[in-house]
Every structure is written in C-alpha cells, then in structure tokens.
C-alpha cells in the first residue's frame, strides 16, 4: 500500500528522457511562450493536446532553422511522420480526466504539473494518485486562481483562502466527489 503511493511506483519527480531534447525552461521562462500556445486544446477538450509539428515550425521555420538539434522536427514536418514523445503524466485507463473543465474553473496548470518552467526535462510533479485528486475535489477553493493566471506558473495569491473562496463563488466551483465524475 505504501509502495504504490511512493515515488518509486508513481514515478513522481523522475525526469523522463525524451527522444528530442526539448527544454521547457527555455521556452517558457526565456521565450515567454504561454502553455496554451503549444498545448492547444487545454481549454476546450479533455486532452490538453501535444503540439503538432507545424506549431514547432511556426517559429523554428524562422529561428534556429538550421539547428542540428531541430533536424528531427524538420524531418517530421517535411515527411509527415509524427514526432514521438514519451508520456510524462499518466492516469489509469479507468480515469477520465478533462483538462477543459479544470482550466475553466480556475485550476492552474502548476497545481498538477508543477513548475514546468523550471524543469530541464519534464517530470511528473504530483503523485497523481486518487488521494491527490480527491483532496482537491473535496475542497477545491484553496487551489483556485483567477482565470487569467491559470497558465502563470509563478503566480501566488497573497491570501489563497480568500481568493480561492471568491473564485469558487464567481466560477461556481463546487465539491465533486461522485465516483462517476471520473470513473465511467
């Protein structure tokens, strides 16, 4: 019981080596790219989405367009063969998580994904066990932030409890603990 909740099993805090060297620090912190620029459907679909190669090429067709590090991206773009990434955050098949409702209700990316802007290689930040989800589903208010700060990984409230309560009222956020909210 302890083992399956330990990082040894959950894979928490374990950097996942990707086939392509992609540094979130550089893109988020240095270049100031918003999460949603690449994770296109975070606000509208269950999956936040992985960027299609054309999104990479939108910039890298112009800058660093000769970089050998980006050769696989160009190859993917011109051959139509997909880039292959390794999944970092993973839920079991019987869990139906939906990004759009969380984002629209003021749950920040950082709440589950951690400071991706500080990760050279992305790793799973939270345990992503049922306990982790249910803690928030029982009492969502403390985790809420204004909609405009959802993707702002460094944002903190001066008084999280008060702000959270206010947002819960404004966005009509309530406790959701029915099993079928996530398991179908």
């Amino acid at each position, binding site marked *: 019981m302890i083992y399956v909740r330990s990082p040894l099993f959950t*894979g928490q805090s374990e950097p*996942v080596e990707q086939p392509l060297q992609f540094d979130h620090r550089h893109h988020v912190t240095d270049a100031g790219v918003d999460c949603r620029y690449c994770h296109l459907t975070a606000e509208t679909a269950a999956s936040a*989405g992985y960027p299609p190669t054309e999104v990479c090429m939108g910039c890298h067709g112009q800058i660093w367009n000769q970089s050998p590090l980006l050769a696989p991206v160009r190859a993917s773009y011109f051959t139509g063969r997909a*880039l292959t990434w390794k999944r970092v955050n993973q839920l079991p098949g019987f869990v139906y998580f939906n990004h759009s409702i969380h984002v629209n*209700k003021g749950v920040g990316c950082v709440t589950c994904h951690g400071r991706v802007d500080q990760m050279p290689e992305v790793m799973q930040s939270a345990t992503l066990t049922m306990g982790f989800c249910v803690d928030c589903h029982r009492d969502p208010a403390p985790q809420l932030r204004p909609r405009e700060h959802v993707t702002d990984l460094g944002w903190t409230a001066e008084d999280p409890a008060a702000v959270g309560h206010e947002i819960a009222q404004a966005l009509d956020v309530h406790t959701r603990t029915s099993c079928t909210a996530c398991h179908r």
Partner: protein
Amino acid sequence: MSAPQLWRSPEERGGEREPTGEFPPGASELDGASRRDFLALLGASLGVAGLAGCTRNPPPEVRPYTRQPRDVKPGVALHYATTMTLGGAASGLLVTSREGRPVKIEGNPEHPASLGASGIYEQAAIYHLYDPQRARTFKRRGRPGSWAAFLAEVGSPSASFRRDGGAGLCFLVEPSGSPLLASLREKVLAALPKARFFSFDPLARDAVFAGTKLSFGRPLEALLDLDKARTIVALDADFLSEGPFRLRYQRRFSDHRMPDGAINRLYAAESALTITGANADHRLRVRSSEIAELGLALLAAVAPDRGKAGASNAFAGSAWVRTAASDLRERGAAALVIVGSRQPPFVHAIAAAINAELGSAAVSYVKPALDDLAAGPASITALAREIEAGSVDTLVMTAWNPAYAAPADLGLADLLKRVPTTIYHGLFDDETAGRAAWFLPATHDLESWGDARALDGTVSLMQPLIEPLWSGVSAPEVLAAFVGIAERGPLRLLRESWAERAPRADFEAWWGASLQRGIIEGTAFPRETATLDWTALTGAITAFVPAPRAEGIELDFRPDARILDGRFADCAWLQELPDPITKLTWSNALQLSPRTAARLGLATEDRVEVKLGGRAVISVVLIVPGHADDAASMALGYGRGGEEIVARGLGANAYLLRTGGAPWFAPGATVTRIGGKKLLALTQEHWSTEGRPVAIVVNAPDVIRRHLPVLDTQKGPQPTVYPEVAQTGYRWAMAIDTSRCTGCSACILACESENNTLPVGEEQVRLGREMQWLRVDRYFEGSLDDPRVLVQPLACVHCEDAPCEVVCPVAATVHSDEGLNEMVYNRCVGTRYCSNNCPYKVRRFNFLDYAKDLSKSEELAMNPEVTVRARGVMEKCSYCVQRIEGTRIRAEIEGRPIADGEIVTACQQACPSQAITFGSLHDPASQVSILRADPRSYGLLHQLGTRPRTEHLARVRNPHPELG
C-alpha cells in the same frame, strides 16, 4: 385487484418448470473446471499476479499530428451525415467519429426514413464495418489478385465479353435507386448495348409493385401516413419492423398510442407472431396462404357490392372480420389496410381497393424509388435460364451472396460453374465468393462514396467516415471498370454524375451543403394521382381460386429479426440480440404453435427433419405461443457455409427449401422428429422477477376516465429503513412508456455500442451470462394458443433506496448526489452480492474475459469514453453517465445549467418510437417530470420500497368494445 397473470414461456405458464433462477445450474462454473479446481489455480496464480502488479510500465509513446486537420481536436467527437442501404433503400445516418474512426451511429433527423432514430441494422453497421472476418484480398481463381490486374483484364479490348456488343455479359446487382449507379449502368449499356442487368434481393418487394400495377395500371410505391390513420388493419404486414420505412412507421404509429381519444387501433392477421402482431389490439392467427381470402372477406364486408366473391368464404362471418370492417367503415378516411411484401400482388390490389373504397387519406402513391422493380425469383430465374442456354460468358455479381440465397430449385451454385468468368463483389468470403473466378472485396457503406434514394425518392448522399480498412472497392467502381473510368475513383464518379444531373453555378456550395445534411433538397417524388382500375381488379377477383387446403404443414420463410436475410450473420452482437418475440439468440429454429407441436408430438429443442418438395433440412423445434396452427416458420440467413467464422454452424439453412415459385410460404411440408435435442440459447426465462407483477397493461377507456385500480396499488409512500437523503441539484430520472415501445430492441444494440458491451457467445448465453445492460422483456398473457403480448424494456432503474448498494462489501456500487446508482469497476472484486440482491435482475457480471476475443479492428469500435470491463467485474446501466458528464462539462464551461432534453441516453436516441425519456426531476417542467406525473406512471416492484428513478408508463390497449 391483482395484476393479470403474465408468463414468459409455455413451460412457465404450464408450471412444468420453475422459473430459472438468476444463475442457472452451472452458471458460476468455469468451462471444464470445477470451483475446487478454480480455487487451486487461483492460489497458484496469486503469487505471480501479485508480483506482476509491482512493476511499472515504461511511459507510453505519444505521437501528435504533424499538421492537425482543421476541426479535429483530439478527444472531441465529430459528427457526419451519411447513408446506408438495405435492399437498395436509403437510411440516413449521423455518425460519431473520433480521431478519424467512426464509433457510434445515430439516425439523421433530417432523413425521411429515420427521423433521427436508428434500428438494429443501423446500430450494427459499426460492428459490420470493423468485422475482422471481412474479406481483405482480391482473388483470381483462388490466388491473390489485385484491382489493377482486374482493371487490366476487363479493360482489355480483347476481353471476351466485348465481342458482339456485350452479348455474353450479364450483371446481377442489388436493387438500387442510386442515381450514380443508374448513370453508370447507362454508360455500360451505351458501350456494350447487348449486356443485361438482372437484380437480386432475397427480400425483394416485387409484389408491392406488381400489386400497384394490377390496381392502378402502373407500378407505384405505397407510402403510409400513419398520422392520419386511426384504424389500421395489417394483413401479414410487419410494417413496424420490416421494410425501408420501418423506423418512420414505428415513430408515427407510436405517436398515436397515447390514450387521448385519438388513439389508433391495430388489427393484425399473420401466421408467425411478429412485432406488429405483438402490438396489435386484435390479432388473428391465420396461415399466410389464407390472407388472400381474409382480404376478400374484408373487402366484401367493407364494400358489399365490390367484393361479392369474399362474402361467403370461411372468414366472412368471423367476428374479427366483421369488427375490423365496421371499424374501418366508421373511420373512413382515417382507416388504412396494409399488406406485407410477402403476400402476392393480388392481395396488395385488394388492400388498395379497400383503401380506395374507404377514401383512406393515410396512403398515397409515388413513383418507386428503385430502378429495379423485379429483384425477386423471376429476375434471377431469367438469369439462370440464360446461363443454362450458354449465353453468359461473363457474369458480374454485386448482389449479396446469390449462390447461397437464390431459389433452391435453380441450382445457381452449380450453374455458376458453367459461366467461363464469374466476378463477385462482396464484403465477405461467403458462399458465392468461393465459387467466383474473380473476387473483389467490397468497401462498407461507411467507407464509400455514393448515393441512394429513400422510399419516398429523397436522394441521400453516402460519404466515407474512414479510409477502407482493408483493400476494397465500391459497387460504382466495379461498374465503372467496364467502361474504363474506374481510375477516377468513387468521389469523382459521384461528383461528376451530380454535376451532370444538377449543373449549377454554385455547385461547390450546394454540394458541400448537401453532404453536410446528408440529403439532397427537393428530391422527394411528388405524390401521384392513382385511380383504381376496377375492371382489372374485378377480373382478378373473379379469377381468384383459393389455395386448396393441402396436407401437411404450411412452411413460412421470414427474414430473421436480427440477421435479416443472412447478410448480418457474421455479426456477433446481432446474433446475441434476443429475437424480439422468441428471445432466441445465436440460431434460427422451426417455429410451431403449441397445438401443432402437440399434434406432431414435438417439444422445444427437438431436432427435426423439415421436408418440402423433395428437399430437406435438419432444424430444431421452438414452440411459440400465438403461431398459426398447421404452419411453421423458419428464418432465413442461417446454416452458412462460407468463410465467416461467427456464422458457421449456426441454425439451419431455410434457403435450401425456398423455391422461386413459393418464396414466402409453401404448403405440404412435413416435420419429422429425428431424435435428439439441440439446445437453444433462449433468454426468455432469464432474469426472472419471481412472478412479481412488473409489466402492467391498461385499457385506453380506463385511462381516459382515470379508473386504474391496478396502478393504484403501485404508487404511494412505502415504509423504509433507509435514511432520507437531502437532494439538491439535478435528480436524474428516466421514464419508459411501454405504450410507445414496440419491442424492436434497437435500444439494446444502441446501448451496447455506446457502452462497449460485448457478446459472450452461444454457450455463455445458455448459462445466463449475456451482458446486455438493457433487456426487453416479452410477456404473454391469456391463452397458450392465442396470447396477448406485452413488452417492457428494463435496465437498472437506479433505485433511490438501492438494495445492491448496502450489500457490497467494498463500496463498489454507491449512490451519487444526483441519484445515480454508480458502478465503480475499479473497486469491484466480483462478489456478485449486489446482483443477488437486485430485485430487477439488471446487473451483469463478467464471468470471463470477454474483451480478450476482440480483434484489433473491433477494438476500434469501442467508445473511448467508457471503460472496457475486465473479468470478475459487475456492470450495469449507468444512465450513460459519460454523456451526462460530457454535457455537464460543456454547460459548466458556458456557465449555464443543463437544459431539459440536452442529455440524451443512447437507448433514448436510438428508440424509433420515442418510448424513453431522460432528464432531471429537479425541474417540475422537464419532460421526465411531466411523464412521471402521468396516471399511467409507476415504479416497478413498488411494494419493495426501492423507489426507482426509472419509472414505466403502463401499456395501453385499445380493444374494440365488441371484441373486448
């Protein structure tokens, strides 16, 4: 007053057999292993399994698009309108597609044939598409071939059939109304003027057109307007479950089963009990051959001066005929007589005469939508004669499986050997594929471009939802190959044919809009003025000689309620769908009435030899209350000998007895017991509620004057030991109007498709392990020979005080704050206590790992929103909670409450008769709240105090006061 005594099988009625318990003997045994063996195995495997659970899987790979298609969001479903055809007639579909794979089918609300509903064949199209048994390779004389090689062969100027203008070239096609196919046929005939087209459909509706030709001088299609009919007489007409407009007719019929004074009354005369017969207020058991005389008697009673011939026959004095006739006369324009396509043209003419005589406004006539009005035995016999005469050099067959389904007296399977080049285009490696020189795998309708006409002429467009899964070509491409334009591909062929037919400046915009809607605006045929030709009809009536009463049994051939003429025989989901009336799965049987079976000394499951005109097949007896005496019926489509694995070895082949002269019923059959039993997988006695009254029927006048004592005992508060739970927010509930329900079972298949329910196989069904969440109970009432029928769909009723929840040791079934009885698969350890404690018997247990038999292609048919359950897990109706949650997320993001009617469950969406309503009780104005306030509404097994969230509305009968 107690509820009327209901029974589900002759054995149950006679008290010969106690109703089978929830789990019949052996139900919890493993195949070939006892419980003790199982425990031993369990002990050994525990250690291994325990260790296996400790390893972590490597992170899965993710492959995003390189260029994401417009409109596509991974995880968000898209919907496209398209069309499927059966017997050449179009049915409009609205297909849900996820990441490029179709997963669910609904009816297209704009389509006249479906009105937004779908039937079992529409629902099964998904499984048909992904069927791993579908043919994958081109074959030339048994060796791998290719489309290119085929094109080269038929395109060659020296091809043998090109000699003499195509004199040796014959086509055997499905009947079709497709403008594209018609234009391609014209092109073929222009290039090869001596080529001939024959069409073939085992269920051809030739008699309808021949009948209208007799009555009106030209072939016409009769369209029924059931909105205008108050008295309906169906003569061997199963209009609620057969024919191209069955969904539309079901909707319109059910619309007028409300006890509001305008309720319709249905009289049905038929031999085998059908869905239409089960819904009749007055059903008459007659042999199919007697229908003509019955029709004449009815004509005589309605119009004494017109139908003297029928005034004195055996039926003339019967109470059924007298009452039906007086009812028809009283209704006048609101009366309607319908004849089924199994009956000869003469009977159709009689019905047209009665309708004309009454001035019925409920029937109108249009030009037939099909280009092939002769697709029955006459057409294929003409082809067989040509082959015998040696005048066929190349035969192209795009019709479904002629070698298997052609009339037995033609010997077509052998005749095909005499044709030097036979080409067969089909979905499966079936009986015909094995005999053809060239086999061309066909694309499924969901993979094809094309067009088709609905019964009223409306053109429906067919667009592919997916690239052909395996190599395959469509029927238009096969025809195009003979005029050298096949390489244009199906889309260009279709667009060119429409650009030619409907040239317009804004073609692109018009084309796009038409594709989006799935139909082409303004293509329905106008109503024809049809004047009855009394002279011809009087001549026919005078010349009519009733069939002499033959010795022996009259054998009826019927399309199977599930696999139709056999073209769906390989679909396990359809095989496992219980027949709406007999509740038989995975087989056909020889249906006999209780009296005839007793006379012949036969019992259900006895193996028998059925002989007719020197031909014989071995079948198995199934006694069906309500069947006509001295008659037997067999469903077509079984006894297969092709390469389809699922279908092989199931049932008996009725086609072996079916001749061109008597395609639908034939006198003089003999039935002899040959000893031994063949166990049938019947579900009629499964899931017993131990004789407690659950299905309730009331008479329309009693509802109108609110005198419903039988229902009064089913209402009101009940003492309970459960604590009262305060409820806020949505309170999901369902109302099922059994008065609307016809028992067609489309809901069952829709539920399976939405919720990833899997078939378990014949053996498992016999053990009572079928997994369908929704079942449609069929009850008989009254006499064994001529019972009345009730149907009642039943799934989990989501009790507010649910007996299942309190007995689960691991809290795997719990109550949601909105009233759902939730089933949490990942918690379930499989004690089955919940199912044991469920009074409705609506829980289903995965005794085995049924998902492991799914092929890679069938996995694509699974709904990604629902878990595919593993072995050892209980499951049941969830009120389509994935749809509730999906809608909730949409509404919450938009910052609004969920509107009434916004959530539609899969069963509700499919239901052709709109018997199912879903919504929230928190809103007193919601549809479901209104229905639950109806005096007919009651909670099943009310006395148990379970307070079901699904309530049923009692079935209404509308008997004629004189027949009671």
